[in-house]
């Protein structure tokens, strides 16, 4: 065991933890974006609410979710430990502003990461916490005729506080009663300052991943003449452009479309 301790206490071992947790969080972003694209479906939140219900009631996903939360904490904690170490490594700062050519993002990973951590706290306390642990999110009842695909939507007030969700059928009509997270989302996204927080956070995410994604591969020692350019392009286009733009589009579209 002491050998493992030695490995993960070394500079490269700590960087390995940063890289692995970081890459896991990157893959999570892909899934999170893909799932949340259902917000753009014009179905009064049916697909999104069913999806949210699935995520919170399917045990394997719950397990992965707690691994995810742990990784966020570990990533932030190791970032803090490494930053403190790095500050100690240069006790006297330069009088002249350092002018070595480096990207802005790579020099400000700590700042960008702190913005993201703050955002995650705001984001999770508003949606995840309220959805799982409070009664502030209402219910919707979707009645879909499975033959004609006609759907009626009504608010639903459960008799029991214990009620979580139900799937029943009445003849050819499928009745789905789930928590209406979609309404909570559109309420939040109708406030301009809330939209602003989201857009700023996605800007931070873009710069964080612009450096972070390819940096993780370097830390793992995975550089190769053939593959490194591909990794860099994925880091730029997928993680620093498409994903932040996709996430930022959600509050912006909801705000301006007034959904």
């Amino acid at each position: 065991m002491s050998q493992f301790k030695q490995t993960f206490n070394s500079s490269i071992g700590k960087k390995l933890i940063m890289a692995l947790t970081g890459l896991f969080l990157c893959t999570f972003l892909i899934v999170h974006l893909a799932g949340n694209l259902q917000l753009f479906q014009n179905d009064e939140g049916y697909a999104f609410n069913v999806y949210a219900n699935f995520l919170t009631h399917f045990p394997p996903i719950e397990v992965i979710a707690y691994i995810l939360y742990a990784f966020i904490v570990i990533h932030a904690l190791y970032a803090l430990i490494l930053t403190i170490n790095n500050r100690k490594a240069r006790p006297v700062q330069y009088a002249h502003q350092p002018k070595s050519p480096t990207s802005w993002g790579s020099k400000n990973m700590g700042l960008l990461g702190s913005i993201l951590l703050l955002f995650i706290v705001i984001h999770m306390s508003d949606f995840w916490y309220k959805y799982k642990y409070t009664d502030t999110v209402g219910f919707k009842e979707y009645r879909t005729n499975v033959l004609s695909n006609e759907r009626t939507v009504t608010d639903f007030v459960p008799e029991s506080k214990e009620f979580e969700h139900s799937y029943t059928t009445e003849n050819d009509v499928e009745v789905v009663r789930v928590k209406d997270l979609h309404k909570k989302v559109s309420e939040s996204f109708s406030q301009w300052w809330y939209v602003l927080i989201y857009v700023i956070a996605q800007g931070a995410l873009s710069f964080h991943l612009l450096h972070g994604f390819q940096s993780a591969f370097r830390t793992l020692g995975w550089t190769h003449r053939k593959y490194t350019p591909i990794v860099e392009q994925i880091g730029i286009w997928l993680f620093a452009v498409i994903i932040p733009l996709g996430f930022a589009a959600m509050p912006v579209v909801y705000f301006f479309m007034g959904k």
Partner: protein
Amino acid sequence: MKLTLKVWRQKDANSAGKMETYPADNISPDMSFLEMLDVVNESLIHKNIEPIHFDHDCREGICGMCSLYINGQPHGPKRAITTCQLHMRSFKDGDTITIEPWRAAAFPVIKDLAVDRSAFDRIQQAGGYISVNTGAAQDANNILIPKVIADEAFNSATCIGCGACVAACKNASAMLFVSAKITQLGLLPQGQPERYRRAQSMVAQMDEEGFGNCTNTGACEAECPKEISLTNISRMNNDFLSAKLFREEEIAHSGE
């Protein structure tokens, strides 16, 4: 040329230092940066001021002795040269030049602009060697090495150990230096017997010396007078992690 110098003055390792301003008059644009300092020191001696202490030796860019953090960049504003190869024509008449020592906890200031870089020597001693048989040298063609591998190893071997990578790094990390030494030997057949032991012991010594942790900003690569590339750090990480996580150090017998 007439210049103004802002120079870090520090009596010894235990004293507090501060920036002092000195004029540098009658400087020829053809002088090297160190010759300019020689001229300034000459004038300081005439004024009964202790001359500025700085490291230098070969003055042709191969010994790795000269240092100096000039206007926010190790070895000054030009790419791929050492301070002794920097000429005053790179500056404009009337410029103010800020000169500081390398800043790192592992490189304590000895005096003024000279720092103690023996941490690098200790890292090198920890594993930067290969085992060879004594006696007559064997035939050079006995060990075949592909040209591309030999070239790459020689690229890493050009590191002169000046410490500019540490000075440039925002984390004062020595990983470019250490990785160049590990890669240089690790790529060649002669370096294979100690390859994985070397990566571990040199990294352990690097951590012991109190250098920071690499965040892949690339400042080291940009400032290295010998243009050692960031790829070396990846190779070191690969060897280190492979040694720590996947290789068996000792032959283990089950049941013991």
